[in-house]
């Protein structure tokens, strides 16, 4: 006779495993098949007790002038386009899912009369604890008259975005740190 507890546990174990597996698969699909966008970053920093050290940044252009009224925390679709400077930016927010355009599904962080600020689902880059401060410093100096301009490479597919790489002065962050001996 089959005992119930071990069978139930095996089903539970499969469900438990399926959660991280689902995250892995969905993100790998985006990283493989997603379209690449480059977003220029602005500086900041903190410490996340759960996941160690990371580089925190703000995306340069997150304020959009909407065509309709939006509330704080409302789910929206933010449309992406590429600017003349080679960087991507959000140019429009919509309540309904767009077709044939590049977009991410996000929420309104802050709505004000005449403009909205959207929440960015790729504002942290996790990195070796000792390297984080150096990388943060490099990222913080971006856009302040130096050549160390920082940006992130993001893959977008079906409204979902995955951060692929943080670049400082045109190099992936680890290469940049090696080259500058930080």
């Amino acid at each position, binding site marked *: 006779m089959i005992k119930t507890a071990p069978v139930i*546990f095996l089903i539970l174990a499969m469900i438990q495993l399926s*959660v991280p597996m689902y995250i892995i698969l969905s*993100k790998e699909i985006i990283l493989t098949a997603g379209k690449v966008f480059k977003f220029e970053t602005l500086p900041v920093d903190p410490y996340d007790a*759960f996941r160690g050290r990371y580089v925190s940044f703000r995306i340069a252009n997150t304020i959009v002038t909407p065509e309709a009224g939006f509330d704080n925390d409302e789910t929206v679709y933010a449309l992406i386009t590429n600017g003349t400077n080679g960087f991507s930016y959000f140019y429009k927010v919509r309540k309904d899912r767009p077709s044939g355009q590049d977009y991410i599904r996000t929420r309104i962080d802050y709505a004000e009369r005449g403009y909205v600020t959207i929440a960015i689902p790729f504002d942290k*880059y996790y990195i070796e604890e000792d390297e984080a401060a150096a990388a943060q410093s490099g990222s913080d100096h971006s856009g302040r008259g130096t050549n160390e301009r920082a940006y992130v490479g993001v893959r977008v597919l079906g409204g979902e975005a995955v951060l692929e790489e943080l670049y400082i002065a045109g190099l992936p962050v680890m290469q940049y740190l090696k080259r500058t001996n930080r």
Partner: protein
Amino acid sequence: MIGGGIILLLAHNWYMIPRLVRTVISLIPLLASQIFAFNVIIKKRWGFAVKESAALFLQLMILSSISLIAQIYHLPGDLEQLFMIWTFLSIPICYLLKSDLSFTLSLAGAVTWALFDRGNSGTAALYWVFFIALLPYYLAGFMKDRGSNQSLFLTWIIIISFCFSLAFSFIDIRMVDHGFWLIAYSAFFVTLYLLENEIRIDTGNLFKKPFLKAGSLGIGFLSCILFTYSWFWENAGIGKSGGTGKYFPAAAGIDYFIFALLILAPVFLLLKNIKKNPLVNAAHFLMLPLAALGYLYPDNAKYVFQIYSIVLSFSLIFDGVKKNKASLSNWGIFLAAVLIITRFFDEELSFITRGIAFLVLGLVFVGVNFLFYSRKNIRGLK
């Protein structure tokens, strides 16, 4: 401890390893903990400590695996979603491994999720689904042996979790009627106190009588401290909005249902046990109608509760003397002392009045304890 160590070692970033290898490594602790837990389930010879360890190890590894995967893909820290998934995956573990620690962690996870959800303007209504899913585990242990250490421990955990859950549950009602939660908390503690008449857990250790102790502490804290200050009642009353957040009618419906249960339960318990300890039961129950009265007429509520605290204290002192229970009388004296001590933060009483009150209370304390001491000696001589 081993689980915690693995988490700390892995949480230290590991950037140089290729991404796919990192994803595999992050799943290994979860798989290991699942194999260990499965082994414990199929071989029934393992004892209590091993079962608890296996459950704890598995729960921590679920959390660590999801966190590490989120780190690998640079996902933003969504703690609300993390705790929701973790609680959902954790609840069955307590049933399968019969683990009290797992029950406690799952309930803590549910409370934490609800607090995050509230922080993000959510309804936290899912908390009650988690709670109901966990309840049979507690009730099974309670029915089997309510006096066991495990059952006693879980009773305290349930009571503590309720203290938190009432706080976030009553925000929806508070959006329209500030002050409803103070009636809810009063009803909750009065219910706990009166439950002692129905369910007595007297095991002889420090944590015995959880309903009586939690109920007494809650009633004492609210009636002798919080409710005796005017600032506490300033925003209470019908129609006074308690917040500017979003109002969810469906979630408020759940709150009103729980509120109704909390009001009916002490009334039922009082009527059923009217003959048992009528004086102290009635004195404790009185807090509930007074809280409701204070909610309706908040202007003089603090004076009502100052008088009520004295009535409650003296009813306890008299009942203690009558039943020859020094602990009961001393609890009454302690509540009266708390009332007077907290008056030091109330500018309306003069130092002479406070001094006289302390003197009288000190004399009552000495007198009552002398009485108990004399009775004990007389009984000893006989």
